[in-house]
């Protein structure tokens, strides 16, 4: 009903922003070709497309970072040239990037009004600054102290600071790039409430996301880009996930997670009932960099059998990544023991873990997994240099053969194995990370957010690989914040809360609601999951 009203209201109004036939070339690539769209005041326009479809280029054009080669941008009915980010900002266009542009060492209020503090000539009027900041935060309905230092805030809170900053700039169009990628479901729900608030106040929002369910939750219309071109535009009433996906990838996709694979695997596992390849008993660690008494992990016990995919779910900060890093020897643990093939082991370094047949696909591929300045070949060889060398000399022939084999097997799209990883798209980078570990033939593979930030096509391929690995007998521990992924892929699910395992769900009992109930400790999670 709400959507109908909006639709009617939109017809009456003229668009805030109109983009007509905009094109942008880069050397060797046509990034955008004749793309047109309109945004009306008081609406949320969803912008979707695979990586490389042109979303970021379009966004950078709207924010004045890039100049289009052709086409026209009209703001309030007036043709406008956006020649700098500053000018776009002055015209009321604010962008909230995935990686925030905040100064972590400054307070909330200083960040919101940076460069524009209320002042008396040379001096900042601190009390006025605080009053204005409080007002903005109130408008957003956010409980935040204006004096809090941004570094100490959660990702969700930092995002609120960004939004407050946009409001303080009198933004009329707010563009959000994957705003929920680092949020928990509860935090995302809070963000949606704020977006609805912005809408009611007549602001226009362009919402970029990979997560289709969010598009359906928050958007009024959807614009789909594919290969730099407009693939389609749909009012939400006419959109279905299937239709959007078909527009995005240009072909229909079956069930994303191929549940039949998991079912088949469960049967096979039940028949074999093998001994666990990994057992974790009573793992515990206390103390973080910020807080020496914080409980990071407590009494974590579970096991993994060969050929099994176990999902590890929980809110961000619940200890999922910490478990992965402890097993892999990246961080130390204080209590408990780890057994590999029934033998107690003490893993002191990633090097030691690799020797035991454990692999880790870390959560952040750019910061933790890849050397961007090196070629695909060199990245692939990195974790197995000792196997690829003789007397300390790298056997380049063997390394090239390995790289070619892995690039073919995982269908990494690249002109050559000598391509620097920097030049690959996110999905292809992730495939290189996974390939690096596959080449080692691990017995146990821990995958932390294996499909974060990659497009649907690549995602399906990664999931296919995981099924394949499990079929080959690898035990996989998959950490994911995407509940559909956890539900779709896992043979069973461990749910963490506050450093402990809150519960375990068998595949037949696994639903998003059940996971959220365990993760939040709230029995009725209808609100949180909505």
């Amino acid at each position: 009903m709400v959507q109908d009203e909006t639709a009617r209201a939109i017809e009456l109004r003229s668009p805030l922003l109109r983009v007509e036939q905009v094109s942008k070339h880069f050397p060797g690539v046509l990034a955008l070709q004749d793309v047109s769209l309109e945004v009306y005041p008081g609406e949320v326009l969803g912008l979707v497309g695979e990586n490389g479809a042109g979303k970021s280029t379009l966004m950078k054009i709207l924010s004045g970072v890039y100049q289009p080669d052709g086409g026209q941008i009209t703001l309030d009915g007036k043709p406008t040239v956006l020649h700098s980010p500053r000018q776009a900002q002055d015209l009321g266009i604010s962008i909230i990037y995935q990686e925030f542009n905040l100064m972590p060492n400054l307070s909330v209020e200083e960040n919101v009004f940076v460069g524009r503090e209320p002042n008396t000539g040379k001096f900042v009027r601190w009390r006025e600054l605080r009053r204005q900041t409080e007002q903005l935060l109130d408008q957003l309905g956010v409980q935040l102290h204006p004096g809090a230092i941004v570094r100490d805030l959660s990702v969700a809170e930092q995002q609120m600071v960004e939004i407050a900053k946009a409001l303080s700039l009198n933004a009329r169009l707010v563009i959000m790039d994957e705003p929920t990628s680092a949020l928990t479901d509860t935090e995302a729900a809070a963000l949606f409430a704020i977006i609805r608030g912005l809408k009611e106040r007549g602001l226009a929002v362009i919402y970029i996301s990979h997560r289709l369910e969010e598009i359906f939750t928050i958007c009024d219309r959807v614009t789909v880009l594919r290969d730099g071109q407009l693939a389609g535009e749909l009012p939400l009433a006419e959109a279905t996930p299937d239709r959007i996906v078909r527009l995005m990838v240009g072909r229909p996709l079956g069930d994303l997670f191929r549940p039949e694979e998991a079912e088949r695997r469960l049967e096979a596992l039940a028949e074999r009932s093998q001994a666990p390849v990994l057992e974790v008993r009573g793992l515990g660690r206390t103390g973080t960099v910020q807080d020496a008494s914080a409980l990071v992990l407590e009494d974590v016990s579970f096991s993994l059998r060969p050929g099994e995919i176990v999902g590890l779910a929980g809110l961000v900060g619940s200890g999922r990544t910490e478990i992965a890093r402890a097993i892999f020897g990246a961080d130390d643990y204080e209590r408990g023991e780890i057994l590999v093939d029934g033998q107690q082991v003490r893993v002191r370094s990633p090097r030691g873990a690799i020797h035991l047949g454990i692999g880790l696909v870390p959560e952040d591929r750019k910061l933790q997994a890849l050397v961007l300045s090196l070629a695909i070949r060199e990245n692939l060889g990195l974790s197995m240099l000792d196997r690829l060398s003789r007397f300390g000399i790298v056997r380049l022939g063997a390394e090239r053969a390995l790289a070619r084999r892995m690039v073919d097997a995982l269908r990494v799209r690249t002109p050559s194995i000598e391509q620097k990883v920097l030049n690959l798209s996110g999905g292809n980078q992730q495939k290189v990370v996974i390939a690096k570990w596959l080449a080692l033939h691990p017995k146990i593979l821990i995958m932390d957010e294996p499909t974060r930030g990659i497009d649907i096509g690549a995602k399906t391929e990664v999931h296919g690989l995981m099924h394949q690995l499990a079929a080959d007998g690898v035990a996989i521990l998959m950490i994911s914040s995407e509940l559909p992924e956890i539900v779709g892929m896992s043979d069973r699910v461990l749910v963490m809360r506050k450093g402990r395992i809150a519960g375990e769900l068998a595949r037949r009992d696994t639903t998003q609601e059940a996971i959220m109930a365990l993760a939040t400790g709230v029995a009725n999670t209808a609100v949180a999951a909505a």
Partner: protein
Amino acid sequence: MTTETGAVAGTVAPEQTKRRFDPIELLGRFAPVIFLIVLAVIFTSQQPAFASEQNFWFLLRQNFVYGILAVGMTFVILTGGIDLSVGSVLAFAGLVAAAVAKGSNWRDVGNPDAGGTAVLLAALAAMAVGAGAGLIHGFAIAKLKVPAFVVTLGGLAAWRGAAQVMSQGQPINKFSDDYRYWGSQFIGPAPVPVVIFAAFVITGYLALRFTTYGRSIYAVGGNPEAARLSGLNTTGLIMSVYVISGFCAGLCGFLLTSRLGAAEVVAGQGYELIVIAAVVIGGTSLFGGEGSILGTLVGTLLIGVLNSGLAINNVNPYFQPIIIGVIVVLSVYLDQLAKRRRRG
């Protein structure tokens, strides 16, 4: 720079990124070589003797110390580190070498050392002192996590101080012919220290290009966390590059003493900046992960050619640092320009 910079990195990109001729990209990539050739041509046109074989060897002999130090420095900078202590370590190691060669009465400037094995011991002592100093630096940097800039700034002061304490302000001179051989004799037409320099360049080049060690150095410099999570011993690797740099400085201490016939407190003063300039001009990134020994060789030769060419043309020597400073900034700027071009 981040996620999907303008879709250039997108799925449509790879097949189409056929390299076209881009003069600015090429200029940026080969800037140091081009500079080197242009300078050589200019100096030769003004003074034909510049291109003579004699001047060639002379030029190399003038610059072997910078060259050897720069090979060690390249390893350090490739990991994203820096070594400001090389000049001071060089001076201290030179004094130690002289003292070891002369034995118990090393303050006696009247008599030369005994030659023979004494010289060998002196060289070994200098290398050991250098490597030891590097080990201390490396330990503080890799294990204690003190920034490399700070540790080696401390080293810059402390090793010079150690040299002063040891020498008490007096140079040590008068050495045997055996001792002088390593710095001032020839093998065929080539000065001995230049042959040693060449050996360092070749070894460094092969090590970085073809060994697992070299690959690991690039990985640690490019992304230390990814390197660690790939099973590399990052702490050990980082320590090792300071040992290499210290070793080079130690050996240079001996060679310079041998060449000059004197071990002095002021030896190698200010060399760290020239050496870092040579490495940076050669295209090695101060952020680590990118660069090569061949680049460093070109950077060293560029500085050498510049110094000698200006001297031949009777240019006031005080202009040299100004010109080198400008070239450092310019070559890094052109390098950045080329990289931006390549990425679109």
